[in-house]
């Protein structure tokens, strides 16, 4: 069967410009058949935009669901590996070192220690925070994995390794908005060196 391209009403230089193929009896226009082409085009297409949207229903699973539920009570709950005894936060349901399921739930924090940090000088889109600000890894008390959060309530150039911090929640917040200094003396390096 002979067919011909039916072009889309609006053409943008993409494969979707071909709306479909339709039957062609050869009477409309000259049927010239295949023609040699130099392979050179006056206006080469250098890029296309192919919009795509997919909707997913994300299931965090057993361990992460428990973590998220605990956060609604402003509690941070990790899971301990039965083999190496490390407490993971947030828990993913498995110890990546031992390759076994973690089940024992352990509440950690709320206070913690800054193990390392960086000063952010570039304003992020859609984020209403004045630069510079500090983003840090925080080892919550009792946790064997540091998580990251913003540090505020202290001049950015006074944040340091070992700084003791506590979470600051905002009304309706699903997780701490940021962490601030507790005023305690700095933690000794040996207490968090494994978590840097």
């Amino acid at each position: 069967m002979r067919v011909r391209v039916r072009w889309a009403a609006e053409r943008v230089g993409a494969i979707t410009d071909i709306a479909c193929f339709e039957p062609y009896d050869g009477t409309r226009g000259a049927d010239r058949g295949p023609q040699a082409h130099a392979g050179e085009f006056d206006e080469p297409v250098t890029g296309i935009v192919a919009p795509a949207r997919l909707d997913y229903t994300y299931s965090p699973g057993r361990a992460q669901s428990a973590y998220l539920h605990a956060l609604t009570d402003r509690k941070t709950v990790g899971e301990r590996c039965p083999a190496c005894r490390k407490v993971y936060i947030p828990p993913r349901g498995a110890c990546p070192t031992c390759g076994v399921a973690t089940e024992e739930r352990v509440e950690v924090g709320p206070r913690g220690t800054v193990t390392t940090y960086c000063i952010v000088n570039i304003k992020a889109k859609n984020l209403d925070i004045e630069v510079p600000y500090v983003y840090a890894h925080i080892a919550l008390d009792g946790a064997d994995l540091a998580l990251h959060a913003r540090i505020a309530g202290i001049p950015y150039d006074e944040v340091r390794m070992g700084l003791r911090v506590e979470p600051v929640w905002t009304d309706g917040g699903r997780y701490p908005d940021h962490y601030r200094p507790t005023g305690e003396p700095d933690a000794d390096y040996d207490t968090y060196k494994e978590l840097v």
Partner: protein
Amino acid sequence: MRPVRDVAVVAFGQTDHLRSTDEISEVEMLMPVLHEVLAATGLKTSDIGFTCSGSSDYLAGRAFSFTMALDGVGAWPPISESHVEMDGAWALYEAWTKLQTGEADTALVYSYGKTSPGSVRDVLTRQLDPYYVAPLWPDSVALAALQAQALIDAGAADEPALAGIAHRSRTDATANPHARLRGSVAQGEYVVRPLRTGDCPPVGDGAAP
């Protein structure tokens, strides 16, 4: 050509294949059967020469989602490991090649897929050539139907012959308590001509090491 080395499958495990597994993550789904297989061999992760997994990150909708599943293996300190953005058969082939070349003497292969978070017929289109094919959103059933029609047009098969393959597979599945569909099902209506409901596989979640 005869393979250089004989390779034997010494253990196999499989989860129940379910339409949806909302309550567990990928690693939580995979881990029990993975440990079942390791226990059957008496080997630890660190004893295994090569570990290879096959899965599609598009199903989770998250880049590098397979690294989360790797947590269930115990990949630290680092192990010799690979992942294919593909199915378990391709992962098995990579492992088989490693065994043939003598780079490894033992291999652990696993695959898993949680299709339930998304609409799999739409999701799988994202794996296709991004310029000429993906913008057309040809779904997996339509692509299979094109191949089936080509076979029919070439005289290599007809609709009853194709239906017979599905029927044979489902009859075989009566011996597998983990399979979602066992025994014969109605051929049903066309999904994408020439493929009918009975020609198409069930969509579900599951893992197999």
